[in-house]
């Protein structure tokens, strides 16, 4: 073979090691990683030495100690006698709660506004444009202050609360409404609801297959609505309408009973939704415009109505363009929820701030905040990437 010749052997031996690009690149990479590791080690060492020199406690032992401070709103039972760890969990749940609601509402608002911006109706188009251009260009923090002040100042004191409906009250302490008192039948209603949803999904699949095979359409929408709403209603009626409402009533300073949405939560949710909604609207508009006009024309030629054209032809194709930038918006909304600290909603940052100030362990507190936001963001990214893969163009 050719490699057995003298010239082949010399090529096998190759250039000197310091001239071999592969070896050189490996050496440089090792060197670079080494420098980074050394730098981190220096910082770690320096911090630990500093903390020790100043006799500042370190470590996560404080999490087991009693928090001793109150929290205004919580999804789980909490009292000042609980630990810092539980206070932290309360903050985390509050952050997740407002973020999750914000993501859903911003998506709905953004999609509606994005489609409205392309409407053939001049008024709708212009209203959507004004909305986007206004709220996109004002800093979120100012918007939060605005909504919060609006809710606080425009609403009356609890003793003069506006009664919208019997038991539904608005005051500067928030929005109070009655909630049903738990009853065993409610669990069955929930089960019926789940069954209804599962039934609706199965129906949808069946009707799709039937339409593909025979071309006959089935009124899926109406029947699904009947299943989802009707089944729990049937159970409710069968159980003898067990509904006792927990009515809010004014006792002392505030309303007792019922359920309440605080002005801080409402301001934060409205602010996040309205602000992020503008960006989503632009993404949706861009996505729709990215679908070539020929697709719409073809759909029109087939005689599809405007609604179906949007739902069946344009949006599924637009999603491929929409989903990746949408991930960034969801991440942004979640991270922006930390502005809650400015208007007094007890989110993760607010509670971690209090904790680190009570314990003096700023380093640990900040590290926990960072770790949590990183984890939340990575999880959102992960699921959005999964979804993106599901809607992506399948190339054959």
């Amino acid at each position, binding site marked *: 073979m050719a490699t057995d010749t003298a010239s082949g052997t010399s090529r096998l031996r190759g250039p000197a090691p310091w001239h071999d690009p592969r070896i050189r690149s490996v050496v440089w990479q090792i060197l670079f990683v080494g420098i980074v590791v050394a730098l981190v080690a220096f910082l770690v060492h320096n911090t630990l030495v*500093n903390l020790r020199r100043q006799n500042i406690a370190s470590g996560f032992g404080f999490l087991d100690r009693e928090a001793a401070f*109150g929290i205004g709103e919580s999804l789980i039972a909490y009292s000042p006698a609980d630990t810092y760890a539980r206070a932290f969990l309360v903050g985390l749940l509050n952050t997740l709660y407002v973020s999750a609601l914000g993501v859903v509402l911003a998506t709905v608002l953004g999609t509606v506004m994005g489609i409205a911006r392309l409407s053939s109706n001049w008024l709708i188009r212009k209203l959507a444009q004004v909305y986007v251009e206004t709220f996109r260009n004002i800093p979120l923090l100012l918007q939060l202050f605005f909504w919060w002040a609006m809710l606080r100042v425009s609403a009356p004191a609890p003793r003069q609360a506006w009664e919208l409906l019997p038991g539904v009250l608005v005051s500067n302490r928030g929005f109070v409404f009655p909630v049903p008192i738990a009853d065993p039948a409610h669990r069955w209603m929930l089960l019926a609801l789940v069954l209804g949803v599962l039934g609706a999904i199965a129906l949808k699949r069946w009707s799709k297959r039937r339409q593909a095979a025979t071309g006959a359409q089935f009124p899926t929408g109406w029947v699904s609505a009947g299943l989802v709403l009707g089944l729990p209603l049937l159970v409710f009626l069968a159980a003898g309408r067990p509904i006792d409402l927990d009515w809010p009533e004014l006792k*002392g300073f505030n309303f007792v009973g019922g359920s309440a949405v605080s002005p801080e939560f409402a301001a934060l949710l409205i602010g996040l939704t309205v602000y992020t909604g503008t960006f989503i609207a632009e993404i949706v508009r861009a996505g729709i415009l990215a679908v070539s006009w020929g697709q719409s024309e073809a759909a029109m030629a087939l005689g599809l109505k405007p609604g179906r054209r949007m739902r069946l032809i344009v949006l599924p194709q637009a999603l491929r363009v929409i989903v990746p930038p949408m991930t960034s918006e969801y991440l942004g909304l979640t991270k922006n929820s930390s502005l809650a600290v*400015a208007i*007094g909603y007890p989110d993760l940052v607010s509670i971690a701030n209090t904790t680190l100030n009570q314990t003096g362990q*700023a380093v640990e507190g900040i590290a926990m905040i960072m770790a949590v936001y990183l984890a939340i963001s990575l999880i959102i990214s992960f699921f959005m990437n999964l979804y993106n893969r599901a809607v992506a163009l399948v190339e054959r």
Partner: protein
Amino acid sequence: MTINDILGGLMIIAVGLGLGGTAQAGPTLDKVKQTGQISCGVPTGQVGFATPDSQGRWGGFDIDICKALSAAIFGAVDKVKYVPLTAQQRFTALQSGEVDVLSNNTTDTLQRDTELGLNFAPVVFYDGQGFLVSKKLGVKNAKELNGATICVSPGTTTELNLADYFRANKMDFKPVVIEKVDELRAAFFSGRCDVLTGDASALNATRLGQAPNPDDYVILPERISKEPLAPVVRHGDDQWDDIVRWVVYALIEAEEKGITSRNVDEKLKSDDPNIKRMLGVTPGMGKALGLDEKWAYNEIKLVGNYGEIFDRNLGKDTELKFERGLNDLWTRGGLMYAMPIR
């Protein structure tokens, strides 16, 4: 690798850079003399204690403590860099060396003294936590506050005392926790909260300074905590700790001996050996502290004694009209008692 190790690593990266610079910092006095100014952590704005005027010059009780320190070290009151710090920022700023001393209405507590690595100078103001409410609510004392919504600033002993008080009395409350003092006050005056809680002195200043009509609001009689407010330094520099301590004592001692900014020059001729030692006529005290022998003279000449500082910023010469009360000299039934300067 446990999650703690990972988090530990992360946090260390986060602050390593920030703390890196102070690893080799020497005694604070040397640094202060070298840079020619004292970095003094003060409140972000509180009537009577620390407020900037229309020209941006700081004034107030806390500010005068910084000035006294400057006078004792440099013989001039303007060698101070004022760093406004919120309750949440102040300890980190002191620990990391961003400021040399806090004159920030800080309550002296065991935990802060130990775990936060701080040392407290003598108390300059004895305060207590109270409740500010609107008269319209018709509340007469704090025991009637069950179920109230309460505005409070985070990360302070105030927040803990509040929770403790309601727990001890088996009452409920809803805290609204807001960091910026301005937003906190706005929330209270717009009726978002029934009660604003804080140190009684600060509440009184808020009532007089920010309320639409001060007479519509009242501070309830209860004081639910002891709040001894004192300047703070960090662990690890005993000389600096001593300087701050004795600068404060000298202010109190001067009032007790009747030395004021107006008569301090005459007092130089005094026959009282205590006054002679303090004002540096008999040398020794300044050297012991590592300062000029004129340290106390300069303080009193340029800033005044404790009583003058109190009256000028909080007491009878001001709108606030605070009573001396606990903050009077021990000889008049108060708690102000300076250790002997000898």
